[in-house]
């Protein structure tokens, strides 16, 4: 199973680079083919960011749902990824 992770970032965002580093680290640790991630520049995809409820950067969405705003700890991020990866399809609507 693969989860889709999106990091919402902006050019002026001080913590966005740190979140992206965390994601790279986790993708490597948890096997890259299980985590399909991309960086979303909110300036380029403003409507999409608003649609998902992003009100500040950095923010992280998993499978199209906003899960974190700000800089999460690596443990919180790992736990959430594992929860999605082990859940039955369609059960992670919370």
């Amino acid at each position, binding site marked *: 199973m693969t989860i889709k992770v999106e990091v919402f970032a*902006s*050019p*002026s*965002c*001080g913590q966005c680079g740190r979140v992206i580093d965390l994601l790279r680290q986790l993708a490597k640790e948890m096997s890259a083919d299980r985590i399909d991630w991309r960086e979303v520049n*909110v*300036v*380029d995809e*403003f409507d999409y*960011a*608003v649609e998902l*409820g*992003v*009100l*500040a*950067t950095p923010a992280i969405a998993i499978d199209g749902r906003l899960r974190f705003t700000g800089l999460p700890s690596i443990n919180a991020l790992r736990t959430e990824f594992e929860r999605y990866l082990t859940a039955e399809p369609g059960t992670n609507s919370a």
Partner: protein
Amino acid sequence: MSTAPSTTERSSKSQNHKQDAGQSQYRIGEMSCLTGLTADTLRYYEKIHLLRPVSRSASGIRAYDDHDLSRLRFIQRAKAMNFSLEEIARLLEMREDPQHARDEVRELTHRKLDEVEGHMKELETLRKELTLLLNLCRSTEAGCPIIEDLDRS
């Protein structure tokens, strides 16, 4: 030194409206201050029956009450949503006696509720957009490059 009352004092005096059996009463000037509507508009609304006939003193001075104030505020909200005066008149009919409203008025109320809810969704999206823009700007010290970028795109 002048003894003329200040604007604040005059405003305060205008709030000293009469009380009649627990109901406040307002002259047309006071009602105008409370609602922001002109005296001409208030008279016009009465003429086209958006307001019921306003009671008058022996000297013919209009005396509005809280019920009129409530109707006027409803009218203002509905006008802000671009409802026509004709539609507002029918909604007021519903407001006076919801249990015996005609089918046509009930349907109009449904349609207007849908319009208001659609408008609220638009406003909610705009609220999120503005919040995001402000948060994006907050982290920059010089100017607001995000808005400049959006303007260019």
